[in-house]
């Protein structure tokens, strides 16, 4: 997706150049602020409505009742029923395990590969690199049928590994990291090598510490992508006890039927983990997306 990214996503120095200039509040500015704030509130309404519904009793939440944004009859029953059912917690744990495996493996494999491509010349390099470039254009969704068959043959269907491993292949991340590594001056490594450090040691003690922000971006995006992946886990995890959160919520919770308070409690709890991740890593995420577009 990002054949475009050729520079590290994080360029705060660049951003600071475009510092806000002092502007006297004009009518235009007031309109801009009001319009922007109104749209932002509008954008948040669906989430707020879900939150509001989740804090009502089932009776108040049911259809045909008057619409109240502030619950008339506050209640945590929706959440309590959810925890009594227990499956939500199972899915959350499954999602955490799968996304963690995917993120750790992606980071590990891509950092190694990016370093190899960035710093070495070896037989077959161009062929392998070319194959990975081509892979940028292969849509994963169009491969589900043979991939499913493969995972079945490997006897990984319905396991954490079956859920995680096919998601690890991320050519894009290799490119992003390689571009970043390419830009790191060799002098640092030469110094380490003079001290007798091997290649792996140079990677771990010189390159990796210099690549904190870009590795954080890769990790966060991989984690979010894997956490929100729907199609693959839908195919592989057919047993409710192995489902990830999006699949469990979509397939099983859809069957909660008319219990809207419980339904929205599930939605809010389903949204919460990544919203928290987003709030914590807002800067890295915003810069990471920005990096896709900047040349």
């Amino acid at each position, binding site marked *: 997706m990002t054949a475009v990214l050729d520079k590290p996503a994080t360029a705060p120095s660049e951003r600071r150049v475009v510092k806000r200039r002092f502007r006297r509040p004009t009518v235009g500015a007031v309109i801009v602020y009001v319009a922007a704030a109104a749209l932002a509130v509008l954008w948040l309404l669906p989430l707020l409505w879900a939150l509001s519904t989740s804090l009502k009793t089932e009776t108040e939440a049911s259809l045909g009742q008057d619409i109240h944004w502030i619950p008339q009859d506050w209640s945590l029953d929706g959440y309590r029923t959810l925890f009594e059912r227990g499956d939500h917690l199972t899915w959350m744990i499954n999602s955490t395990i799968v996304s963690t495996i995917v993120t750790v493996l992606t980071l590990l494999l891509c950092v190694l590969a990016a370093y190899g491509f960035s710093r070495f010349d070896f037989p077959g390099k161009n062929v392998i690199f070319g194959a990975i470039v081509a892979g940028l254009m292969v849509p994963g969704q169009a491969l589900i049928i043979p991939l499913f068959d493969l995972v079945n043959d490997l006897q990984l269907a319905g396991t954490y590994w079956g859920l995680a491993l096919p998601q690890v292949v991320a050519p894009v991340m290799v490119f992003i990291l390689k571009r970043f590594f390419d830009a790191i001056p060799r002098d640092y490594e030469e110094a380490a090598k003079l001290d007798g450090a091997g290649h792996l040691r140079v990677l771990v003690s010189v390159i990796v510490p210099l690549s904190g922000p870009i590795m954080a971006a890769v990790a966060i995006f991989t984690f979010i992508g894997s956490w929100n992946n729907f*199609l693959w886990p839908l195919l592989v995890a057919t047993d409710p006890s192995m489902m990830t959160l999006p699949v469990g919520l979509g397939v099983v919770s*859809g069957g909660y039927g008319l219990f809207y308070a419980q339904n929205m409690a599930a939605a809010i709890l389903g949204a919460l983990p990544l919203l928290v991740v*987003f709030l914590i890593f807002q*800067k890295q995420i915003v810069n990471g997306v920005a990096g896709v577009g900047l*040349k």
Partner: protein
Amino acid sequence: MTVKTEAPAEAPAAMTRPPNPAGAKKKSWTGLWFVLPFAAFYALFLVWPTFLGLYYSFTDKSLTGRPASWIGLDNWTEAFGDERAWSALWNTAEFTLYSTPPLVVLAIVLALLVNRARKLGWFLRMAFFAPFVVPVSVVTMIWIWIYQPDGGLLNHYLQLLGIQDAATPTIWLQGETTAMWSVVITTVWWTLGFNFLLYLAALQTIDPSVYEAASIDGASWWRQLAHLTLPLLKRTTGLVIVLQLIASLRIFDQMYLMTAGGPNRATEVAIHYIYIAGFEGYRIGYASALSYVLFVLILIVSIVQFRLFSRKED
């Protein structure tokens, strides 16, 4: 984590082509060891399935596990004559056609607003981007609830505003014409934040002095937008449109969860039909042929993207 940003971020400008000290790049097998683990995964989970799928498309392989046999082009001729497949492709195209314009135009509008409302920057960015990190099933759960014909939030307000008669509420997700639009609206709400951030980032790299010069020349805000800002955003718009095309061709999740392809298959999209053929009809061979049709379509768009943007890099 962020303290260290400065050092490497500045480096690329100074050293686009780093010097090549003797010994650092001589041909040896060492580099291969670093690349090998990734390459092995890549070969197993991407390259191999790509060819396996092509092979299956020429067989009558079934999910039931009975032995498969070579049937030549039968799957392919069937696919090209399959009305349900064409209709699924058409629905995919329709979704793309409806969703792309708002996802581009609204993203520009929001980015322009946020770029000028700097003091609310953090809150605005959060508000518009937050839905993007929410899992698809949460998104669809919330919107199914909003779209409820009787007593749902949307119809409630439409009736309050007098746009809709309470006696004939719109059945959003079950109506043949409204179902597609309902999913489009949900998708715009869900994914707009990504495009918005792309535009915002592009806007923030525009040198303010460009505008100062234009202001001195007396150019109005509209003229500045039409003759300065939008042309400067051309590259970003190209990127957004291509990424959007690729994403829309792969549409499945929202449709599956919100309408299950209905009503009357009005929202059955390409991936959904592949899923049905493979996992409900057990026809792996046929589903593989269908996959390859979609594969080629996405590939064409991707190649356009690749050419469009790798050229501009130089």
